[in-house]
């Protein structure tokens, strides 16, 4: 689905990482860890074609991103659910409209989709906040809304950057349970996180691989996790 092959990325002339290879295959579950500034967010952005690697190749659903035009990248993103650290919402729209945005831009809004949005908002505990605007939400609510938007299209891959950073353990577990459920349906999941306890709790439910980005390299994490 998403393959990073020996990629390197430099920012402002400073090499962030190199020799990174990673394959997000159907049914795979990865955690991406590493110290702050190691390039986790950058790696995730490379995974959905928002950034271009300096060397190596990124393949989205079998196609090299470097050879895809903007529309092809856009169509590929409809198959990827993305949760950003900062939410990335349209502040002039309501939470419901933001969650529906992937359906809106792909002209898939209908009564069935509207019911699906209501279910998802209820499941993420956002029913009462559905008509509020994103700036009115708490940090945790924003992350739940971002996750709801990421999964509304039943994507084949979910990329989540610190999806549980601002929410309590109970809600974290509920959100992770949703991702685990999607993973059991054959979806690939990649979560960037600092939260080791979250990783441990998740590994108890699913065979997750943990990769660590450190000193410019991506390596498999040891058994200490």
């Amino acid at each position, binding site marked *: 689905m998403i393959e990073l092959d020996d990629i390197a990325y430099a920012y402002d002339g400073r090499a962030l990482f190199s020799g990174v290879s990673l394959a997000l295959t159907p049914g795979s579950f990865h955690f991406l860890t590493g110290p702050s500034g190691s390039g986790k967010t950058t790696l995730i952005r490379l995974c959905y074609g928002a950034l271009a690697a300096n060397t190596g190749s990124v393949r989205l659903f079998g196609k090299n991103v470097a050879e895809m035009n903007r529309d092809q990248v856009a169509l590929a993103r409809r198959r990827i659910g*993305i949760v950003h650290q900062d939410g*990335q919402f349209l*502040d002039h729209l309501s939470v419901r409209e933001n969650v529906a*945005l992937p359906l809106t*831009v792909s002209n898939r809004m209908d009564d069935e989709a509207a019911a699906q949005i209501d279910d998802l908002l209820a499941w993420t505990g956002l029913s009462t906040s559905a008509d509020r605007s994103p700036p009115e939400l708490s940090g945790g609510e924003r992350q739940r809304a971002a996750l709801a938007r990421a999964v509304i299209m039943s994507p084949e891959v979910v990329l989540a950057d610190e999806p549980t950073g601002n929410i309590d353990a109970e809600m974290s577990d509920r959100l992770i349970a949703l991702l685990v459920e999607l993973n059991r349906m054959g979806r690939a999941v990649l979560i960037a996180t600092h939260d080791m306890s979250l990783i441990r709790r998740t590994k108890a439910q699913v065979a997750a691989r943990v990769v660590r980005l450190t000193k410019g390299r991506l390596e498999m994490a040891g058994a200490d996790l």
Partner: protein
Amino acid sequence: MSSFAGYIQQLIEVVRGDPDADRVVPKSGQTARLTILSAAAMSFLSVFVLAFALSAGRLATLWQVELAQGSTLRIVAPEEDLSELTERALEILGEIPGIASARALSDEEQKALLAPWFGEELPLDILPTPRLIAVTPRRQGFDAAGLAAQLARDLPEARLDDHSTWRAPLVRAASALRGLGWAALGLIAVTMGAVVTLAAQASLGANAQVIGVLRLVGARDAYITRAFVRRFTLRALSGAAVGMALAIAVFLILPTNDDAPGGVLTRLSLGPAGWFLAPLVPVFAALLSFFATRAAAMTSLRKQT
């Protein structure tokens, strides 16, 4: 899909509209006001310049027709010889091919011609005035140079004036004014295109975060472009409609006098062609805005990649 088909498809989508897509771009007050105001001002000016160009065109055509329709033979001689010379002149004119009729003006007609300069009570009988003969050519015209040469030989007291000396520069001036009017319309269109482009670029720049989110969720360029293009096209259409309505209101109360000797100034009116073309100004403004915004959006999206 070919580029032309793409344009048509987008135009149809702009006209049809999509409430969901319309909402994804926030309403930005400043660029909206700028677009509406400039469209209204440019449309108002366009209707006036259109009327100016059409009036100048009508005047040029009228003068051209008048030029083609008449010549004057002037006989300068002592009073006692005038009747005989006039008879001879009419005989000569009657033999010239291409002349439909020739008629000596009466004293009253000559008096009326001189009245603007000497007043109504002109004593023609004591003033040495030339006798004037109005010559009306046939459609194909006559050989004015040949007639002038014949008159110089057979009737030296007579001078042919085919009006070209003073009418031709006027016709050229009116034609030039008409050209100037159309050029001014072109400049207004270019200016409006530039204003809309700048407003669209400002709006696209201010909404870079919105574009980023739309891309994140898989919006294609056509979707993002359509959202901006529709908004700017509708703004230009509404602003231009207001400008056109104001201009038409001014024309309805503007006094015109076709008989006054002021040329374009006193004959400034829309005319039948203008009443047909003026309502097309907002449509043209909307089309201009559509293409300008589309080009700005495509460039901006390319740069933001």
